[in-house]
């Protein structure tokens, strides 16, 4: 009666070859990846941090200063870009949750087992499409002579094509919301998959309508998955620059574009680095909060 999926991931068996054992095995194995991570991850970060406290000069370093940070915090242009970024990212995330939650529910609880894997694969394959191609596809749809304008004109709803469909913050939101759907859906799907369907029947039996069951049972039990989805999707959204550059126009200009422009076009490494670093700290904070909440929820939900 209760359909249960096998747990995701399984451990592989040890081979019989000689290998380090005991309490030093862990550290020995992790030396190489740790070094790679330090070199490739921490290294650039240190360089970034260094530049963000340096005066701008052609050599890249012109003495220590806080100017980069103060100019970002005081210049209203940067404030506006930051605000645009927060609004675009938050709305995109909310749209993805609005699509991902029902989708995860349908996949986990309402799909016949024999179609479940197929649907999951379809979701993942859709994600595999090259992001640039996806963005250009949206330009074809949203553009002046695009599918939407053409359709609206043909059925006579509008006389002239709507220009604001493309090159606007709306276009960025549309492109971004459709880009990370599977990263939003799959963690929530995994969380819901672990929910015993008896719980929903029990809630129904005790007098809860469908909406109450969603609010009181499904949502709290899906919460760890929702937080994971936010960590996986919401934070990377902040560093997005390809989509706003290609469909954003001036109203869809995001922090990622400002950083790119500062470093690659204005040659202002100091301000670019400072912005990157501030974004990094912000992301870290969001990730930490998300992680804590996911952990608390998971602890409560373990029975």
């Amino acid at each position, binding site marked *: 009666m209760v359909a249960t999926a096998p747990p995701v991931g399984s451990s592989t068996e040890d081979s019989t070859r000689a290998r380090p054992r005991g309490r030093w095995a862990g550290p020995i194995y992790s030396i190489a990846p740790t070094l790679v991570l330090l070199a490739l991850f921490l290294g650039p970060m240190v360089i970034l941090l260094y530049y963000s406290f340096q005066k701008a000069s052609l050599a890249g370093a012109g003495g220590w200063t806080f100017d980069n940070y103060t100019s970002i915090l005081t210049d209203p242009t940067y404030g506006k870009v930051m605000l645009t970024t927060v609004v675009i990212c938050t709305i995109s995330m909310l749209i993805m949750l609005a699509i991902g939650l029902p989708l995860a529910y349908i996949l986990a609880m309402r799909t016949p087992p024999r179609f479940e894997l197929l649907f999951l694969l379809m979701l993942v394959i859709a994600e595999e499409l090259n992001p640039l191609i996806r963005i250009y596809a949206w330009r074809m749809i949203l553009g002046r002579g695009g599918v939407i304008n053409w359709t609206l004109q043909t059925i006579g709803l509008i006389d002239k094509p709507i220009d604001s469909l493309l090159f606007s913050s709306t276009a960025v939101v549309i492109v971004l919301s459709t880009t990370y759907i599977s990263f939003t859906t799959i963690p929530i799907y995994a969380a819901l998959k672990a929910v015993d369907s008896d719980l929903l029947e029990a809630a*129904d039996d005790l*007098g809860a309508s469908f909406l109450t069951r969603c609010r009181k049972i499904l949502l709290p039990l899906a919460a760890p998955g929702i937080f994971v989805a936010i960590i996986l999707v919401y934070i990377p959204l902040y560093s997005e620059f390809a989509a706003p550059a290609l469909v954003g126009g001036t109203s869809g200009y995001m922090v990622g574009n400002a950083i790119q422009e500062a470093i690659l076009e204005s040659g202002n490494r100091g301000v670019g680095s400072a912005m990157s670093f501030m974004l990094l700290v912000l992301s870290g904070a969001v990730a930490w909060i998300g992680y804590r909440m996911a952990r608390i929820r998971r602890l409560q939900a373990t029975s």
Partner: protein
Amino acid sequence: MGTETEHVGADTASAEGIAGDGVALSLDHVVKRFGEVVAVDGISFDVGRREFFSLLGPSGCGKTTTLRMLAGFETPTEGRIFVDGRDASRLAPHERDTNMVFQSYALFPHMTVAQNVAFGPQRKKLTRREVEQRVQDSLSAVRLEGYGKRYPRALSGGQAQRVALARALANQPSVLLLDEPLGALDLKLREEMQFELKRIQREVGISFVYVTHDQGEALTMSDRIAVMNGGVVEHLGTPEEVYLRPASLFVAGFIGQTSFLPGHVESVGSDGAEVSVEGGHRSRSARLDPRITVGSQAVVVVRPEHVRLSPTEPPTDAAGVPVTVLDEVFQGSVVRYQLQGPGDLRLAALVPLDERADVHPGVQAWASWLPEWGYVLPGTESDAEAAASEVEASA
């Protein structure tokens, strides 16, 4: 044949079980089909107020499907279900006045015990004070005062079971539905909970419909039992009725242990029937099914605890057959014997220690029982074999 016995049962039942107190739940020729498969094949019965009613049968007999239709998780293909006189056949679970205790307990893991129990009352738009009162009352009914702040993961199996019960009771339903609620508990706890459930049922005074495959549980707790097999109710009656006067060979085999002795009905009189069983031995039985007529095929059913063994044929007019003792197992207060009768006949005997005769494996002996403990049911030898194997398969 199913419907026939069912009505025999239903008549006796309405006379005893639900007189005076009224009907809480009523099924009217309910059928449930899943595609081609008929899970429930036209069952009708009433459950009285304050009655402890059990649906007993092997897995796949339709008892759980019946319970799920009562709860509203399944919709009957045909027939109607009335809760408190109201047609509830098509009502959603949250729209009907029944509550269910799940086999898996289905406690909400992200809520405390108190929040779990409060879930139902909160849906009823009661005041906060009333909700708290109900939580307190329900938890004290299952003797779990002081556990309100715990999370389900911090409960033992028995405690979780009680919380599940308290949560369903807090809604004060007309009928409480229980789906093998003791199945996951160990034997000792299960026996304790049987009496506990009975006590709670008496105290809260609502009807219980209890699904189980454990005949011991059903006999211990129930006011009436519906024995189900193949989607129909084969027998509906009090525990004594289904035990002493089973309506069919299946019921005889499923409730308790039974030996079947197929044979021919030689005579039927006011003092019982005479059946000649395998090897020409005559067995007189004081009790018989009303369908028994002279010359028909019949099966004498006899419980192991009524069989006594003696080295020679007993001089009394007791019924009996000569047997070879196959096996003897000492079980403390009783001794269990496996016996080989004439032909293919197999019998079991359960003899109290103080009545144990001087017979041992390999020895020829005589198995006998008083005529009032043999019960004659219609059926042929192959019917008896079929019933025995059906019971065995379900055990």
